């Protein structure tokens, strides 16, 4: 689960005050709001990539406020995927496990497994140049999930995709959630994403966050 208590962040001139939200375990949370209102900042704070002024962050019943990003057990899919351009897809998927010094056999097995249910087996030995938008996001998601984190953070992963690919990604994300039971927090400004995926929705507006009803549960 993801719980943020009275988070205050300052990035340059921009600031968020006393933001609180909670996403139950295994749920798919969404952060909506206009561009530039701080959604990415909240995500980065949860991941530990932006220092916070005050507040607490609790992930999967652990207080991670003082922990480094590597210790938080968070899978992070930034905008545009941010794939490593000098590594093959295979290496990227195995990267987190390689850092954790897992045996090579285990890494290979996990990579094959991920590639299969993400549908990117045919891309394993390619470098990232020339991959389509959808393929890139699949690799990014695979990379983020490779070490089986309990939390998945996605920053507008579908914004650059065309409709057809977007539909495919909805199916993929639903399957991800079903298989891995991660608690997800997905930032978007697109209404259809909310309609399709969200269990819990938060709206960010002028530095304040409030929960709104998830369209899925509205009949």
């Amino acid at each position, binding site marked *: 689960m993801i719980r943020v208590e009275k988070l205050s962040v300052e990035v340059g001139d921009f600031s968020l005050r006393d933001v609180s939200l909670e996403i139950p375990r295994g749920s798919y949370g969404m952060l909506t709001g206009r561009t530039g209102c701080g959604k990415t900042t909240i995500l*980065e704070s949860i*991941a*530990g*990539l932006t220092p916070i002024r005050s507040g607490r962050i609790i992930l999967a019943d652990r207080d991670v406020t003082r922990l*480094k*990003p*590597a210790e*938080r057990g*968070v*899978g*992070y899919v*930034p*905008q*545009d995927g*941010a*794939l*490593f*351009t*000098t*590594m093959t897809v295979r290496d990227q998927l195995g*990267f*987190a496990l390689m*850092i*954790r010094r897992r045996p090579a056999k285990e890494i290979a097995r996990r990579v094959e497994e991920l590639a299969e249910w993400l549908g990117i087996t045919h891309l394993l030995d390619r*470098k990232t140049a020339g991959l389509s938008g959808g393929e890139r996001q699949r690799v990014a998601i695979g*990379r*983020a999930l*490779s*070490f089986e984190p309990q939390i998945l953070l996605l920053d507008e992963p579908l914004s650059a995709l065309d*409709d057809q690919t977007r539909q495919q990604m909805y199916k993929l994300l639903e399957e991800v959630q079903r298989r891995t039971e991660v608690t997800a927090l997905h930032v978007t400004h697109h209404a259809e994403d909310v309609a399709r995926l969200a269990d819990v929705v938060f709206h960010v507006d002028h530095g304040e966050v409030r929960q709104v009803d998830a369209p899925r549960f509205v009949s």
Partner: protein
Amino acid sequence: MAVARGIGRGERVQEGRGIVTSASLVGDGSKRAWSDPSFFALLAAIGGTYVLLIVAMLAADALYLLTGSPDIPVSVDFDMDAHGKAASHEARVSDLYQGYGLTIELAEGSGSLQLIDTGKVPWQWRHLGTPHVDFGGPGMGKGGVRRQATQNNAALGRVLVVTEPSGKENWYECRFDFSSPAELDGLRFSAPLARPVQLTVVTEDGQELTRSVAASIEHDKWQGPSAQHVLVGAPWDFGGVEIEFASRRRATARTSGGTAVRQPSLRTFVADPKLGRLRPVAARRVVRFRWTDAVALDEVTLLNCLEPAIVTLRDTGGETVHREKISATGPNGVREVVFEKRGVAEVAIELPPEAAIAELRFRWSGKVLSDWERRHPRLARWASNPLVTAFGKPEIRYSIKLTLIACTITTILSLWVAVPVGYLLSRYRFPLHNLIDAILDIPIVLPPLVVGLSLLILFQFFPRSVQSAVVYEIPAVILAQFAVACAFAVRSMRGSFLQIDRRREQVALTLGCTRAQAFFYVVLPEAGRGMLTAGTLAWARALGEFGPLLVFAGATRMKTEVLSTTVFLELSVGDLGAAVAVSLIMVASAIVVLILARMWGSRVLSI
């Protein structure tokens, strides 16, 4: 759903939500877009002038090497022989310059060719002394005085004179020249005299009063006129003599191993004793200089021509190419006669009595031709073009080796520093960030000589052992190159790191990396291309570095000489061909490195 179609080639249409993509209206106007010739001609003309300039410079260098005949200037001044060693007094003059293929002989009349040192002439030879007394030397004679066209204002060292035996023995002479007439007080010999010596006092109006002296003259006991010059001489070595003159001042001279003493109002000279045995012939003589292969005669310098001299130039076939009459210089006068004639194989100089030849300047191909080279001159020129001869010189081979090694080490060091510094500057905003940034720009902005000088001064503060190990030694070459090249590398790396998206490192952190791991696994590989660029930049800058090297490392041949200083050294010696050859070597090595870096980079880093 609306569907739009365009006309012409190259259009694309997307069915869907009425979205039309691509410039479907361009069609085969894709050619039209680039077909504005006058505009592109204008751009090409402006930019092309610079490209042309670069190409022209390189082409001129190459052309010079391939077609120009090497022209090495030589100065036969009778002080050094053809191999750059000091010519000894006893050397046979005729063979002294065999190294240039030059023989010198007396063409007509009796006498022998001698080299005399014009700084050590005895009184009898005073018209052949250089420089003139006006300029602080032993020469005397109206022709050489200040503000004459033939003024004798520089020491000419050894000159060539035709002499005959004087019938006397060696003459050991100490000479004292006063700038204004002096009252003499006393005379003291360093050792008791076995026989009397000759004392000559020359007064202001040129009167010479000679007497013989058997013992020291005591202080205040010397009676006589005030002297402009005092000469103490004997046909045997009397050791040394000390004179006292007005206001109790003293001057000392020693005949054995003689050192001349200088004082503000007085000059002391010790003559070369062997000149006592000789005297210049009192008749006209012809001295002939003959080369095995034709040279370009530039200049002849004559000394003490009391009558006109005649110079005749002949070519290899013996035909007279030029004949010139040179007007008299007056006693002790010097005249430089400029010829600048090519194809000269023989110079015959008809010298008036008591005249001397001070210097001969010519330009030659650099070596005595062998027979086959004489038969096939064009082929020989090709085979001995400056590029080939440059590689033949061990100094230049050493220079190339040192350059390659030093530039490579500098590049490695520069990258070693530039990568961390560039990363820090690009990622972190620490206090004094702007100041550090400015400091790192300083070596780029400073004049190179200032960088070298500052390094030199910096090392003054180090202990002597460190100084002697570094300054003017090979480490100084690397340090001087590094000081400037690194600044360029830092600048380049900072730019590369700024271009790498921070998000990738952030993702790496979430995947479990420490900062260091994120740097090594993610950032560094991505910066590979940037490192190659920075490295190439640093290498090229190190190759071209000259100012700091000259000041801090010196330009000692076979020690701290690199290619950039070689060009300077060869230019300063006047060997234009070698300088151009080395320049082209530098250009070639720079191009090779650039190509290699591109090739290697594209293969290894998939650029």
